[in-house]
């Protein structure tokens, strides 16, 4: 009970701060919307190429865009945490009797909520372009989205606590996200890739997330692709949450 109450208090505080920070909101929404408007029209003609999955260009593109959004959100969580460690905010909070787990979970929930908020806006914005939404596929897609957010936030928090420095953190995050992005089939489906590239991408958990999201947006809910996506992301999310919690509990700065 104490943990839930404190987690909620921490969530409220961080979520309120994010909402009240309009520039932050604007910046974090601008990029996916730009992708939607500037990149998606190219897909109209690519969708006719052999090997491109069926279901309409936007139903292939938007799920990938959502995963990409999740991947890029990995930067923001750790960024904020490093700043707070340096400003002494984390130290101040760790002297209170509040549970350390709640201090971490509350801010992780904020990251998840922000990502779901952005994802909903993109989905709604894509409907006029031709995205079709069908239940229960879309709902499950959002559940998977939340797991992706949990994974990214936790990896980000753990890395931030390990590195303690914005510059190193930035360099590592940026160099890690690019190959992950290219090998996830976010921009173009991996079914278009040569075999060796497909083999390499089989090690990328995000590939399974993207495949699962595409299946869910096609409202094909009960299949191995969706299951694989949930298992891959869900188990990694749990592991990284534990890692982040341990790092946060130890954090002595």
């Amino acid at each position, binding site marked *: 009970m104490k943990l839930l109450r404190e987690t909620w*208090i*921490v969530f409220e505080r961080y979520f309120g701060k994010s909402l009240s920070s309009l520039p932050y909101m604007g910046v974090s929404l601008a990029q996916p919307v730009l992708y939607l408007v500037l990149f998606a029209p190219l897909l109209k003609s690519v969708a006719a190429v052999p090997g491109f999955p069926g279901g309409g260009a936007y139903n292939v593109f938007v799920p990938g865009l959502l995963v990409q959004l999740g991947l890029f959100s990995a930067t923001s969580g750790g960024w904020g945490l490093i700043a707070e460690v340096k*400003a*002494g905010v984390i130290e*101040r909070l760790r*002297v209170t*009797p509040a549970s350390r787990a709640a201090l971490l979970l509350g801010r992780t929930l904020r990251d998840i909520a922000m990502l779901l908020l952005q994802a909903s806006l993109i989905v709604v914005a894509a409907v006029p372009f031709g995205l079709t939404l069908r239940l229960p596929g879309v709902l499950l897609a959002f559940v998977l989205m939340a797991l992706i957010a949990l994974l990214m936030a936790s990896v980000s928090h753990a890395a931030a606590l390990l590195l303690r420095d914005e510059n190193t953190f930035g360099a590592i995050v940026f160099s890690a996200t690019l190959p992950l992005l290219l090998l996830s089939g976010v921009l173009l489906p991996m079914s278009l890739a040569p075999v060796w590239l497909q083999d390499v991408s089989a090690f990328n958990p995000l590939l399974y997330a993207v495949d699962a999201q595409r299946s869910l947006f096609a409202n094909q809910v009960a299949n191995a692709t969706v299951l694989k996506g949930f298992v891959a992301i869900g188990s990694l999310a749990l592991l990284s949450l534990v890692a982040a919690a341990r790092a946060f509990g130890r954090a002595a700065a």
Partner: protein
Amino acid sequence: MDHTPPSQTAIRVRGLRRTFRTRRAEVEAVAGIDLDVRRAEVFGFLGPNGAGKTTTLRMLATLLPPTAGEATVAGCDLRRQPQRVRERIGYVGQAGGLDHGVSGRAELVFQGRLYGLSSRAARARAGELLAAFELEGVADRTAQTYSGGQRRRLDIALGLVHRPELLFLDEPTTGLDPQSRARMWDEVRRLRDGGTTVFLTTHYLEEADALCNRLAIIDHGRIVCEGTPDELKRAVAGDVITLGVQGDPAVALSLLSSRAFLRDHDPVAPDSQSLRVYVDRGETAMPAIFRVLDQAGVVLETVSMSRPSLDDVFLRQTGRRLREEAA
């Protein structure tokens, strides 16, 4: 919250140690210290940067596990009851811990709720603190718009949300202008008069002198002396005579060593121009000093007499001046 029977001791520390491992070696930041802080006093930890002040404070505030030693903080055992210690203490770190994107009021309410206050009680408490620290005018603005003094006052208000019996302040006035510093001193005195124990660190001699009921001087992780500012100063000398001599002060230094008019230790030369002689009574020592130097042909350029300061205490204990390092 239960109330432990009041005792006279707010902090009791025995053999507290902390070592850090770096890539090359083990560094002893705090080398086994003993300490007793009484209730409702302002206790100062005076020392240069890197002396181990902050490390000690962070251990006592449950932020850093000690390598060895025992401590009772606010009546609770530091190792076995860290949670109960946290309920009873306030801590204001050197960095302060403000999030510049959040308003003072919002942060005070948040802090109160983390201490278990209801939303309503937290709001009421935030209102009280904003009034007490004269922050009402800026309460709903984000902290980035605050002046240095306002930020520091908000830092301290955040540490007081749950009315702790013991407040730790790590360098509370570093970086403040003289006016804000005087103001901060008043706040600390007001807290003490209200029964709160304040444990602060500082590297300002004036601050330790003006504010602290008792203090400990810490250097290289060890406590070199402890007492009231007056006791410490009296122990060094009745009067301090500062001599400016022509040429190398080492000559004068050796001439004046082991003389009967000295308190109980030889003069020291804190820099290459002057030496400080610690005596019981300056009026009687001065003629004797002049005689000795004159006979040896040492030319005196300046002479002055003063009461010993904490700088002298530090100089006597460590052979270095604190003032220069603090600059």
